[in-house]
């Protein structure tokens, strides 16, 4: 029997970056089939798309859209940090980049929200 890793071991920036990257990726992966189904409605022309878009008028859906855009921006920024850590000979864990990733995602989410409301 092995002692299990304690949750207190995970309280640091690089681990949160991993967790956010994984969960955001999972959410986006699960969203993709829905996204493609919606867009596929264009096979019925503008009317088909409008039918799908009517569903997106609901305020909760708008919030979900903002959430997805934010998750995408987060996953992108976190991913860029990972690519730099893996492909360039850096030694640190670049905690500042984690903060930067959240900043980028917040800014993108805000821009999208403003656009949505405008």
């Amino acid at each position, binding site marked *: 029997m092995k002692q299990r*890793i304690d949750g207190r071991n995970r309280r640091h920036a*690089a681990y949160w970056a991993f967790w956010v990257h994984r969960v955001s990726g999972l959410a986006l992966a699960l969203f993709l089939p829905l996204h493609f189904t919606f867009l596929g409605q264009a096979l019925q022309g503008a009317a088909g798309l409008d039918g799908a878009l009517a569903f997106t008028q609901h305020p909760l859906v708008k919030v979900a859209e903002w959430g997805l855009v934010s998750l995408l921006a987060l996953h992108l920024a976190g991913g860029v940090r990972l690519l730099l*850590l893996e*492909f360039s*000979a850096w030694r640190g864990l670049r905690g500042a980049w984690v903060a930067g990733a959240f900043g980028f995602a917040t800014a993108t989410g805000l821009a999208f929200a403003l656009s949505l409301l405008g």
Partner: protein
Amino acid sequence: MQEQRLKVSVWRGDAQSGQFQTYEVPRRASQTVLDVVTHIQRHLAPDLGFRFACRVGMCGSCAMTVNGVARWTCRTHVQKVVGPQGELEIAPLANLPRIRDLVTDMREFFDKWARPEGRFVGQTDRHEPFAVVKPDTAPRQQADAGIECIGCGVCYASCDVVSQRPDYLGPAALNRAWTLVNDERDTRRQARLGAVAGDAGCHACHTQGSCTLRCPKQLAPTASIAGLKRLVARAAMKGEL
């Protein structure tokens, strides 16, 4: 007013089961967690099982889980980790089979060290002149950055991928392989790259970074593993694995 007595929860048990038991330990100046464990064994519970050797931060034998985090107990001052009511929690290292109390079976750790050809294999013998290895070449600097590992197991005990993938070689073994791959005298490079490739090797690392954060010698297994990822990918795309 500082608490004068520590309330120490120590994991007691065997390979199958156990639980935390609390002991009261007098607080002293400059006390380390190893001092606390030693006090418990000497005065309160003579049958407490634990490992230590040098007690000065050179051997790595005293690694245990302190308040949920793997540390060298001889180099952990109570002052730094004690709770506001004098609480302290000590458990064996994670990810390794328990033997008894605070002692774990390190065989799996060292088996995985050996698996990716974790030992140097040269091509000259003592009758030949010394190898001249320039210290400032990039590969030598990469090797030097990881060479101080003493195999204490703290990184292994801190890695979530080790918990979730039983075959994963782990940060120490991979860090070791990286230092050897960068050693220009070594002759097993190709075999070593093959041995560290794939989901049991460097590609399972998700850059969670707990190993680098916890290493008592400030090594960076994450960086070493990233280096292996680059070398292995290149070799794999060329079909050399």
